[in-house]
C-alpha cells in the first residue's frame, strides 16, 4: 500500500512536473482570454436560439467539417462505385450501374478465391477475417494479462505502464521499419537464433511465419493502449469484494473467475470493440512490412482497395469504391450490432 502511494507521489514531483505546471498556468490564462473573447460573439447567438436549439450551435462546427470532409466524400464514393473509367472527376466518368459489384462477385465459388474473377479481393476478405479473429483474441489476452500484472503489487508501476505504452506512440510505418530491420534474413533475431544453435528462419518469406509476425507486431504496437483501459476497469473494482471473498475462503483462481471477470466484462467489451475496429482497418503497417506478401498471404482488404484505386498504374476508382462500400456496409452492420449490445448492456 505504502510503496504504491510512494510511487505515485514521486511521479508527481520533479522537474518535468514543475515545468509543465508553469506551462499550464500560462496556457490557462491564454485559454481564458480566448474563451472570454468568443463569449462576446456567442451571446447574441445564444439569445436568438434559446435553450431548445443552442445544441445545434455547439454541434455545428464539428458537423460542418464532418459533412464536408467525411460524409460528402463517402456519398461521392458511393456514386463512384457505380461508374468506371480512369477519370477522377465524377462528371467525366461513365455510369455502369452495378457493374463493379457484379465484377467483384463474379465467382464460381466465393469460398475459393482462385475461381473468382477478382481473386485478390476475396483473398483480402479471407485474410482479413483470419487476421481479425486471431489478432483480436491475442490482443485481448495479452492486454488482460499485462493489466492484471500491472494491477498487482508491483514496484515501479508507472515505469512499466510507460514501457508497455511506448510503442503506441510510433507511427505504423516506423513500427514496420523497426521490425523489418529485426526480422530480415541477416537481422538480429536470426543471429540470435543461430547463436543459440538454431537454423536461420526466413520470417517474412515463409507464409505461416509472415502471418504470425504481422499479428504479433500489430499486438506489440497497440497492446499498451488496451492494457491501460483494462487497468482502469480493474482498479474500479472495489477492494471490499475481494476481502469479502477472502473471508469466505475463496481461492485466487476462484476470486478471479467469480469477482474480477464478471465485473471487468463492460471494460472488456470496450476493448473488444475498439480492437476489432483497428484490426479491420489494418493497412499501412502491414503494407510497409510485407507488402501483403509473401504472395498474397498478408494481403488484407484495405490494401486491396488502396492498390486497385490508388497505387496501381491504372487506377480503377470505380472498383475500389465498390469494394470500400461493401467494407463500409459490413462495418456499419457491426457497429449497429455493437451499439445495440451496449444499450442492452447498460439497461441490463
Amino acid at each position, binding site marked *: 500500500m505504502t510503496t504504491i502511494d510512494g510511487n505515485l507521489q514521486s511521479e508527481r514531483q520533479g522537474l518535468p512536473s514543475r515545468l509543465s505546471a508553469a506551462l499550464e498556468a500560462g496556457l490557462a490564462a491564454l485559454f481564458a482570454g480566448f474563451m472570454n473573447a468568443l463569449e462576446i460573439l456567442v451571446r447574441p447567438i445564444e439569445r436568438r436560439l434559446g435553450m431548445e436549439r443552442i445544441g445545434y450551435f455547439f454541434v455545428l462546427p464539428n458537423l460542418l467539417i464532418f459533412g464536408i470532409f467525411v460524409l460528402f466524400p463517402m456519398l461521392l464514393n458511393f456514386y463512384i462505385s457505380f461508374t468506371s473509367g480512369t477519370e477522377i472527376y465524377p462528371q467525366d466518368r461513365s455510369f455502369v450501374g452495378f457493374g463493379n459489384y457484379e465484377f467483384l462477385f463474379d465467382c464460381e465459388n466465393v469460398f475459393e478465391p482462385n475461381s473468382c474473377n477478382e481473386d485478390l479481393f476475396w483473398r483480402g476478405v479471407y485474410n482479413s477475417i483470419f487476421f481479425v479473429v486471431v489478432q483480436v483474441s491475442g490482443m485481448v489476452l495479452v492486454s488482460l494479462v499485462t493489466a492484471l500484472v500491472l494491477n498487482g503489487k508491483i514496484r515501479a508501476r508507472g515505469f512499466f505502464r510507460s514501457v508497455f505504452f511506448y510503442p503506441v506512440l510510433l507511427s505504423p510505418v516506423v513500427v514496420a521499419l523497426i521490425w523489418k530491420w529485426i526480422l530480415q534474413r541477416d537481422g538480429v533475431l536470426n543471429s540470435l537464433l543461430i547463436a543459440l544453435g538454431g537454423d536461420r528462419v526466413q520470417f517474412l518469406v515463409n507464409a505461416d511465419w509472415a502471418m504470425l509476425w504481422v499479428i504479433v507486431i500489430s499486438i506489440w504496437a497497440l497492446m499498451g493502449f488496451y492494457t491501460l483501459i483494462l487497468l482502469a476497469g480493474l482498479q474500479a473494482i472495489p477492494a471490499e469484494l475481494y476481502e469479502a471473498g477472502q473471508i469466505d475462503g475463496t481461492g485466487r483462481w476462484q476470486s478471479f473467475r467469480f469477482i474480477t471477470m464478471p465485473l471487468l466484462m463492460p471494460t472488456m467489451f470496450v476493448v473488444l470493440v475498439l480492437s476489432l475496429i483497428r484490426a479491420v482497418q489494418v493497412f499501412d503497417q502491414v503494407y510497409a512490412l510485407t507488402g501483403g506478401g509473401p504472395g498474397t498471404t498478408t494481403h488484407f482488404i484495405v490494401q486491396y482497395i488502396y492498390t486497385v484505386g490508388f497505387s496501381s498504374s491504372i487506377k480503377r476508382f470505380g472498383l475500389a469504391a465498390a469494394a470500400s462500400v461493401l467494407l463500409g456496409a459490413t462495418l456499419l452492420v*457491426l457497429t449497429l450490432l455493437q451499439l445495440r449490445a451496449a444499450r442492452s448492456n447498460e439497461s441490463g
Partner: protein
Amino acid sequence: MSAETFQASGNIFTRTRGRSSLHPTDLLSYLWLLFGTVVMFGPVIWVLMSSFKTQAALIEFPPQFLPFQQDSVQVEGHDDPLPLYDVTLEDGSIRQLAQVRRVGIEAQMVDPDSPEEIVRVNIRQREPVRSLRLALENYIDPLGRFNFLIYLRNSVTVTVMATLITLLINSMAGFALSKYEFRGRDGIFVLFIATLMIPISVILVPVFLVITSLNLYNNLWGVIIPGAATPTGVFLLRQYMLTIPDELLDSARIDGASEWRIYWQIVLPLARPALAVLAIFSVMWRWNDFLWPLIVLSRSDVFTLQVGLHSFAGELKIQWHYVLAMTVLTLLPITVVFAFLQRFITTGIATTGMK
C-alpha cells in the same frame, strides 16, 4: 473513480492485503514485466544503435550491437588514409597491416611503419580492425539535403493547429450531444459513430477531390482541417461528459452563467482527463501522418517532416543507413513529449475509463 481505488493493492488475481511473502504468481508477474520490457523497448533500442552504424557495418552478419567502424591509417606515400586489417600470415602469426589495393583475391598490404615493403595476402586471411565510432553522417548528410527547419515548422504547425481545432470542435460537439436535448441529436450521434470505422485510405480520392475544389491543395489547412472532426474524439468526449452531473450545470444557470460559460468554465475543466487523452492521440496521429500530407502537398515548402524525411527513398534502393537515422529523428520529439507528459497520458487514459 476516486484516487483511493487507484491505490488498492493486490497481486495478480486478488487484492489480499498485508501479505509479505512472495507468491509464485508474483514471480511470474515480474518475469512477464521483464519479458515485456525487453520486447517493447528492445527493438527500438536496436534501431537506435543501428542508426549510428556505417553502411558497411549495417550489412554485416552477425550484426554487432554497438556501432563499429573500420580503422584507417595515414601511410607515407599515399594521399588517402588506408584501411587497417589484422592479417594472418602463413606462419600463423597475426600482423596489423594497411591495405594499399586489392587485385582479384589478392590484397596488397603494407606495414604502416615500413611502407616500402608490399605484403601479398589472400583476402580471406584478413580481418578489418575496428573500433567504436558513431556514424553521425547518417544524420548530417540527409539533413543537409533539405530544409529540415521548414519541414519541422510545418509539422509543428499542423500538429498544434489540428490538435487545438480538434479539441475545440470535438468538445463542443460532445457537450451538445451529452447535455442538450434537441431534435436530430441521436441521428447526428449515430452518424458520427457509423463513420468511426471507415479508414481514410479507402476514401482517399473523393476527399482529395473535395480538397482541390476548395482550393486547399498545397495548403497546410488542407492537411489540418479534414481530420479535425474525428468521430473518435466526439465519441470519447461525449461518453465522458455524460458522467458529469447535470445539477452542476443547472446551478450555474441559476447563477446567471451563459451556456458558453458553462461549457468552458464548468464542463471543459471537468473533462480534462478525456481532453488529455484526445490531445495526445491527436498529436500522435498528426505528427505521424504520412499518406494524407503526401497527397495534399506536392511543394517542398509546405512538406511536413514525415513527407520530407521519406523523400530520399528512391526508385531503386533503400538507403538503410539514412532511413534508420531519419526514423530515430522522427521518434525523438514524440518521445520527449511522452517523457514529460507520460503521467497525464497514462493516468488520463486510465481514468477516462472509456465506458
